[in-house]
Every structure is written in C-alpha cells, then in structure tokens.
C-alpha cells in the first residue's frame, strides 16, 4: 500500500500519473490524500501515515525535514511553475506596471499560500505592492483557485496566478506572463518519508514521476519540466 | 343585543350546528360537557371558521360564508373571558388591563380604567406582575380587561369553574354588579345552574353539538330541584331592613323576614334552601327559629321521593321540600294553609 500526500493543486497530474503507474504495477494499492500543503505537513507531523509528500510550498517541505519525517537527501524537485496575469479580454495590460491603472487585482494570500508569496515578490519588484495594498485594490484570496474564480467571475480585473491554473479559466484570458526573475523560482518539492523510503513501491512511484513518462504528464498539465 | 346565528361546522367526529335568533342583555349558554358551548364561543369570536353560515350582531354582519364575509376577531367587538384568565405574563396588571382599551376606538370606549379597577377592587394590584396573583385576582383582571375593551357583546366561558367555592362566592357579586353597572350585554356559560340563575334569565340549550332551544332559567332550575343536594334554592329579593335586637328584619313583599346580623343590612338577593323551610299545620309555640310565616300551598311538585311545596306567602313565592310522609301527615294539598318556619341563620346573602 502506497500513501500519497499531495497538494491539491497537483490533483489532476498525480491522478493521471497513478493511472499510468498502475498499468505497470497492476497490483499496486495507492491511496492519495489531497489538501493544502500545510495541512498535509501537519498531518504527517501528527503521525498520519504518508509515504510520499508533494508540496507546493518549499517551506512545508523544510518543516517536515525539520521534524525528521523526511531525510534531507530525499527531497527532489518534481516540477516548477510560472506565473501569469489573467483578466477579462478587454483589460488593457501587457506588463506588470500596467496593473497600476487597474481597479482590483486578486492574488492568493501571501501568508497562507506560496502563490501569494511569489505574486507579492513580483509586485514588490515592480514597485506596485505597497501602493495597491494601501489603496485597498489588492484582493487577497485563500488560494490561487479562488483568485482565478474572482477573475473568471469578473469580480476583479486581473489576477496573478499559476500558469497551470490559468488553463482552468473559462472567461478570463491570459494577459501576459510575469517575468520569472521578479520572484523566487516556483518549485514543487517531492520527498519520500522515512516510511516511504523503505517501501519498494514508493521508490518505484517516485522514480516513475521523475522519469520521462511521469514528467510528460506533468508537462501536459502545464507544469514546466525541471531540467 | 340582537344576535342572529346560523352556523354549521364539522370538527372530526363532532358536528356542530346552531340556528337561533335571540334578543336580550343576559343570555346563558347551557349544556353538558362536550356539547359545543366553547365551539360556539370560538365561532362567535372569529377564532374558528364555520363550514357554512352567518352571524349577525345588532344588525352588523360578522360573518356570512355565502357572501364571503369574514370579520377578523379584532374587528368584531366581541370580547371573551376564558376559563383560565390567560393574562399576558410579560405585562403588569395595568398593561394587561389597558391592552384592549388602547386598541378600542376612543368613541367606543365606555369606561375609564380607574372606575373599572375600583369596581373590581383591583387598585392595589395595578403595578404588580401577573405571575403572583391569586386565582380570584386573575379572573377579575381578565374580566376587567375584557370590559375595558367595551365590546358590543361579552362572552364569559365558564369564567369561574377553575376557582374554588370560596373564590366563586367572592367573585359572583363583583361579576353581577360589574356587568349590570357597565351595561354590556353578555353571553354566560356555566355548568352550575345556580351561577346561571344569578347572572342570566334565559339560556340557549345545547346538546351534542346541536342547539336545542331557548329556555327560562328558573324553569329549568325548578325542574331539576330534586337533583340538588339542598333541594331547590329559593332566591329572595329582600328590601330595606331594620335592627331587631341582635338580628336584622328585612322587608319581603308585604311581610318581614328576620335574618342573622352576619349577612349585613343592605337590601339584596338572598338564598334560602327549600329544605331549610319547616312546615307546621298549627301555629307552633316557643321555638328557636325566628321566622314564622302563614302561607297557602300553591302547588305540589312530586319529585324523586320528595315533594316540592310551592307556597304563597302574602303574595311572594317560596318553595319548600318535604318528604312524602310529612306531606301526608300535614294533609298538604293545593290551597291548604300551613305555617312555614325559617331560622334566621338559614338565609345566605348572594349579592
């Protein structure tokens, strides 16, 4: 039995990978648990069973390492991501500084979601953050999906979200990409836990994800391949 | 009050139907338990909807199912005093009293609060909450509350049956005085014929949900005399009185009756049980009873082993009950002369 604790934003890609992996290992029993990275990390800290942890937030990976649930050398980067700005097709914005003229911009809450932190860094670099924040024009959402929801429903004029999430948009369109040098690289760390390390199946699955077949699935979902 | 009623209503198994047309100020409603008296009250007050029918009060149509007329309870001006006072627990006595008053058009209001409160002896209670009132006080508050709303018709649904004997005696005089005084026509429901006799002259009879006609209260009372423990209760209206030693002599028609001082000295209505009257063939001597009246036997009414003797005492009627043996021994027959002996303590003031 293989237990996965996966950040909810990677649900589709992981489910797809599990299906593909099952073709190779028809008898594998794989139980996946999807939630926010923080919740997953705390669950593991409380002793909840998990063999493989995929986090959207490197901080939570550091947390489980610090808790001695994961060996430092087990941490791999599974995928990376990019940030884009979405909004209604009529919004006139081609670069970050254009956001200064836009009424409301949604980002994920920088405190609780890594996406928020990346967006915050980008806006800071562009010199917009404090102005938007103090003018009350910055709408902080729970997570990227919620920021996208706001943009999709037209509640905000633009939202800074992951490129992978932008694919879910129905009405909002991608206005432009956020230059990657404006924020830390967006990385999805993955690690086998101490229990997972001992399971051959877990190791096999980890290797499957890092191998070509697995990486292709992630690429298809919009996650940029790690080099 | 002129009340015209023609109502039909089916409640589960119970079929209610009444059609009558009655005029008067003091009408009773009489019938065994479950005969539909309260149902009639609810219909008249607009708390229940008939299947079919109409109600016309003093020419004003309160309800007519054929014409689609339905006046809601608050616009009927029909007041109800329920068996259990149903006072508002969140209001003081004063605000309970004023509840209806404030909702009555100024030109309809008949009586000011102070007058009603005085008449019903409620003045000391006005600022109290209603939780700590005694049963009799509650009932008086309920009555005053209904009176202050100056209804065109007041319905009293067994207002006294929750009370014990002592309280009843305390309230009936109030009730009678208040209702007379404030000239509000009323329908009175009671199980006790004596209560009924004190407060009404005629009554609507009900049986199993059906109206059975209008009857004279005294008539019914006499017919039932044998069922009562005390036989028949005579009601005597006594006039002015004077002191006679330690006793009080009241005017009664052309003669006088000696009554114990305890019953007070004002004119009023007195009760005298028929079995408290002793009959003698000849004038007895030196006896403890204070009243000795010469009378003629007007009628003999046999009932259930006893004989009711209707007497004519100088023009006033009086009913005595004697056992059959006594009637024979005294050779009672219509027209015979007898002496009626009554103790001074046998009288009880009703009002």
């Amino acid at each position, binding site marked *: 039995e293989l237990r996965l604790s996966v950040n909810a934003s990677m649900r589709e890609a992981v489910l797809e990978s599990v299906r593909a992996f099952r073709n190779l290992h028809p008898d594998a029993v794989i139980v996946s648990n999807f939630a926010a990275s923080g919740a997953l990390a705390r669950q593991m800290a409380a002793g909840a069973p998990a063999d493989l942890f995929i986090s959207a937030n490197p901080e939570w990976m550091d947390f489980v390492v610090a808790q001695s649930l994961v060996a430092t050398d087990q941490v791999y980067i599974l995928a990376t991501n990019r940030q884009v700005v979405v909004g209604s097709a009529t919004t006139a914005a081609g670069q970050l500084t254009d956001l200064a003229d836009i009424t409301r911009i949604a980002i994920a809450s920088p405190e609780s979601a890594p996406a928020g932190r990346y967006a915050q860094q980008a806006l800071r670099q562009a010199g917009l953050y404090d102005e938007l924040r103090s003018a009350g024009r910055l709408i902080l959402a729970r997570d990227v999906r919620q920021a996208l929801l706001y943009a999709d*429903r*037209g509640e905000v004029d633009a939202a800074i979200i992951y490129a992978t999430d932008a694919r879910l948009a129905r009405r909002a369109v991608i206005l432009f990409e956020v230059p990657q040098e404006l924020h830390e690289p967006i990385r999805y760390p993955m690690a086998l836990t101490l229990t997972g390390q001992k399971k051959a199946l877990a190791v096999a699955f980890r290797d499957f994800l890092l191998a070509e077949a697995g990486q292709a699935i992630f690429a298809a979902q919009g996650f940029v391949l790690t080099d | 009050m002129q009340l015209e009623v023609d109502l039909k209503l089916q409640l589960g198994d119970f079929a209610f139907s009444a059609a009558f047309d009655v005029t008067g100020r003091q009408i009773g409603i009489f019938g065994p338990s479950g005969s539909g008296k309260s149902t009639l009250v609810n219909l008249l007050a607009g708390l229940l909807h008939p299947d079919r029918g109409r109600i016309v009060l003093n020419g004003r149509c309160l309800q007519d199912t054929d014409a689609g007329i339905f006046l809601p309870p608050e616009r009927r001006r029909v007041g109800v005093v329920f068996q259990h006072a149903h006072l508002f627990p969140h209001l003081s006595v004063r605000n309970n009293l004023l509840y209806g008053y404030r909702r009555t058009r100024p030109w309809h209001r008949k009586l000011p609060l102070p007058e009603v409160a005085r008449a019903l002896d409620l003045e000391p209670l006005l600022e109290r909450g209603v939780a700590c009132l005694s049963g009799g006080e509650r009932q008086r508050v309920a009555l005053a509350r209904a009176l202050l709303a100056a209804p065109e018709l007041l319905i009293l649904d067994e207002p006294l049956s929750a009370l014990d004997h002592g309280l009843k005696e305390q309230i009936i005089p109030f009730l009678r005085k208040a209702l007379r005084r404030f000239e509000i026509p009323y329908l009175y429901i009671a199980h006790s014929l004596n209560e009924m006799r004190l407060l009404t002259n005629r009554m609507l009879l009900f049986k199993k949900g059906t109206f059975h006609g209008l009857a004279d209260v005294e008539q019914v009372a006499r017919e039932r005399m044998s069922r009562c423990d005390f036989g028949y209760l005579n009601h005597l209206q006594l006039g002015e009185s004077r002191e006679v030693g330690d006793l009080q002599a009241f005017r009664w028609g052309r003669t006088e009756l000696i009554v114990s001082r305890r019953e007070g000295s004002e004119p009023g209505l007195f009760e005298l049980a028929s079995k408290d009257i002793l009959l003698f063939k000849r004038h007895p001597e030196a006896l403890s009873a204070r009243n000795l009246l010469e009378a003629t036997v007007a009628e003999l009414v046999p009932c259930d082993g006893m004989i009711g003797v209707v007497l004519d005492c100088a023009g006033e009627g009086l009913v005595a009950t004697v056992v059959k043996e006594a009637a024979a021994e005294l050779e009672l027959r219509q027209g015979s002369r007898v002496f009626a002996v009554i103790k001074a303590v046998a009288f009880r003031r009703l009002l």
Partner: protein
Amino acid sequence: MLEFAPADYQALWLSARVATAASLLVLPVGFALAWLLVFSRLPGKALLDGLVNLPLVLPPVVVGYLLLLLLGRQGWLGGLLARFGIQVVFTWRAAVIASALIGLPLMVRAIRLGMEQIDPHLLQASRTLGAAWYDTLLTVVLPLSLPSMIAGLSLAFARSLGEFGATIIVAGNIPGITQTIPLAIYDYSNTPGGEARALALCLVSIVLSYVVLLLSELALRRFGWGTSRRQGSGSRAALRKSPSS
C-alpha cells in the same frame, strides 16, 4: 506569552464587529422565519423549512460560492447594488452577510423552540381584545420569544466567530479590511511556526464568545419569565444526588 501583531488587533476588532452585526442582522430575519414556520399555514412550509436549513447542510464554501454568485458584480443583487454605488463583495459587509446566513438556521431553530412554547390562548385573547395579527405578533409573540431570541443570538454570535469557509470567498482574506479571526488563524496555521500566534488568536476568540455567553445568560435570567413562572430552579434539585450538598 500572548503577543499580538497590529493586524491581530484589527482582526479581533473586526471579528467582534462582524459577529455582532451578523447576529443582530439575522435576529429579525430569524424571528420572521420562525414565525412563518410555527404559525402560518403556508403551502410550502416544509420546503421553507428545508431552505432555512441549507446553510447548515451545505459546506460553508458552497454557501460562500453561491453568495458570490448572488452578490458579485455579475450577480443580480450585486449588479443592482452596484448601481447605487454599494459594493458588498470584498468588504466587511460581505463578511457580515456570510456569517449571518451561516447563523440563520441556528437562530431560526432556537426561536422556533421558544415560540412553540407560547400558549396559543394568549394569542386568541389578544385577538379578541382588538389586536390584529401583526399587532399580536409584536405585542405578545415578540416579547414572549425574547428568551429564545437571546439564546439564538448567542448561538449565532458564536457561530459567526468561527465562520471561515463562506467568509473567505465573499469577503476575501484582506488584513485590516476583511480578515476576521478565523481568517487570520488560517494564515498563521499555513505558515510553519505560526502555531503560537494562531493559538493566541483562538484564545481571544474563546474569551470573546465566553463573554457573550455570560451576557446572554444574564439577559436570559432577566427575561426568564419561563422559569420564574414555575416553581423556580430550586426544585431542579430533585435530580441531584442530595439536594443541597
């Protein structure tokens, strides 16, 4: 041990304001709905009962989503309000509305339980004394429902203090503007090492709810005709092992 950031104070103050406003807002609505459910003979009563229960049955997130659909710029009510220059979404008003809606079923249930205890004869008496139905509602049913309304208020207030799912969707999680205590706690709990501050905020929230609970008990005692009309609480002793010790 308890250290608070300025944003925490804002969250505390906002939470208190939102919970108060929400429970006061939901009070009249809850009263009206309870009245409909207890006294009216609407044909769709069972349906209404189910509708009132919806915010309890649905995950708060769904409630928030539906509210967003209704109140957002594209929503019909939001569009209408926008024409008057009123914006609801992403303001503390949205938090109030979300909390109120979530607290509604609790408020209605509490008031219903109280209303069902009112002696119907009192209502009849009031009608025969010349009070129309709305008059009776205001002068008899309302005051006699006060104790259960207070119980409902304290329930709705407590539920408000803990409301997260619906609020974060319609109001956003904007520190100082819409970030109530649960939202701030969420932020802290999603930061490694934020436990202590999350816990501190929880404690504050508990103290606040506790104060309201005590206040409502006090108010209940003051308006508690229900108990004073009876033998009094002393006779509750019958269920104790020994009456006074």
